[in-house]
């Protein structure tokens, strides 16, 4: 395994939201084999950071590099190596798990039905392949999205709260697939409020990069805006 290769690199990244700087001067490099957990209290900018990483939020300062190139320039290549699962799983409850997964994975590459069924079985949805989504539980709907992890050939996994609505056994399976992905030379970047039991886990606290804000400073800003 070549752990020295840097896949993703952020330099002096800064994001603001509604006129408030969430974080600034954020430097982070993610190598092949890394599993990175982004930490921080609610509203500190974890999701914003992930959205900047996925190019969904192009409104940031600083640069993000994919294999040495700015992601704005190699967007297509970067996207084909990126798997993002956000708060919203992108699963329709009018479709069956099989149809949902087929659609989501065919947005990236052609996938055979046999592979789709195998992936669904791996996340514990064996026997539910043809059940309409509105008859499934919230956790099962999320599992459909998580089944994409088993089909994807992307090297960079960006996951926003992957453990939401997932039971203990499911969490253990997820962690196993993170480790397997890392060992194959991929990387995982995720946010979570749970502490994953992964040995090689790196944690980054977004709050450390938040600009120091005191009550007086805030007052000053408020006065200016008036």
């Amino acid at each position, binding site marked *: 395994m070549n752990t020295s290769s840097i896949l993703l690199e952020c330099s002096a990244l800064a994001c603001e939201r509604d006129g408030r700087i969430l974080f600034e001067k954020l430097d982070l490099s993610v190598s092949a084999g890394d599993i990175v957990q982004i930490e921080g209290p609610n509203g500190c900018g974890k999701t914003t950071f992930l959205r900047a990483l996925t190019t969904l939020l192009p409104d940031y300062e600083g640069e993000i590099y994919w294999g040495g190139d700015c992601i704005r320039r190699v967007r297509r290549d970067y996207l084909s190596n990126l798997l993002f699962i956000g708060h919203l799983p992108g699963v329709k409850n009018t479709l069956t798990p099989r149809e949902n997964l087929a659609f989501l994975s065919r*947005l990236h590459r052609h996938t055979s039905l046999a592979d789709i069924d195998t992936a669904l079985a791996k996340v514990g949805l064996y026997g539910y392949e043809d059940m309409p989504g509105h008859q499934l539980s919230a956790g099962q709907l999320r599992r459909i999205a998580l089944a994409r992890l088993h089909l994807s050939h992307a090297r960079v996994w960006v996951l926003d709260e992957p453990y939401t609505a997932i039971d203990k056994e499911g969490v253990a399976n997820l962690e196993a697939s993170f480790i397997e992905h890392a060992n194959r030379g991929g990387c995982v970047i995720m946010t979570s409020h749970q502490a994953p039991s992964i040995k090689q886990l790196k944690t980054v606290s977004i709050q450390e990069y938040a600009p120091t804000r005191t009550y007086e400073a805030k007052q000053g800003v408020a006065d200016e805006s008036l």
Partner: protein
Amino acid sequence: MKAFDPDAGVKFNEQDYSEQNSGDEVSHTQGFSAVLKRDLVTAFRQRGDMINPVVFFLMVVTMMPLGISPESKALAFLAPGLLWVIALLATLLSLDSLFRSDYDDGSLEQLILSPQSLYFMAIGKVLSHWLTTGLPLTFVAPLLGVLLALPAEGYLPLLMSLFLGTITLSFVGAIGAALTVSLRKGGLLISLIIMPLYVPVLIFGASCVRLAVEGFAIGGPLAILGAFCAAALVLAPLAIAGALRMSVEA
């Protein structure tokens, strides 16, 4: 094992990844057909929503003789314009939901993050919208022409003009839907954005039918409708793709 070389892009040194791929293959048709198929299946499962515009069309047209006059002469005079106005409003009503559910369940993000071309995926989405609203409206319209005592010469032009016109309405309307999808109450805003763009289609569509009823050639307005349709088909997806990207940022 080779060292990582930033100048040559990302190299996949690890055996697993080098065997599998270096990214996903990109084809224009794959994203298009995946979106089209999924949307048609979804629309078919929610048939109630699908027939809404047609039911609206039907209801308004059946009220017209009651509200105006049951006299066939008066109705026949109004029929071309009425049918076109009501078909246009029925399309407008259905627009708000075009990207709404994709935005709410997060699949819009996934569309945008797909390496496939968003341009073709947008065409797929709008095409399925047209197949489930514009096309049924087109085929119901001649039937409703009978209710409004539309003269016999008007039926074929009505069918042809609505066929071309509803494609244009769907594509142009989708721009408004894409722009307003991130707003809670975008319904009124869509109408304000889209109405001015619908006016030329309405003018040429309705005049096409009226000219036919009055016994004139309809080649001119029909050709202009065809030109609108071609332009919308090619240019609107650019605007839709841009608007969707912008909506997801918010």
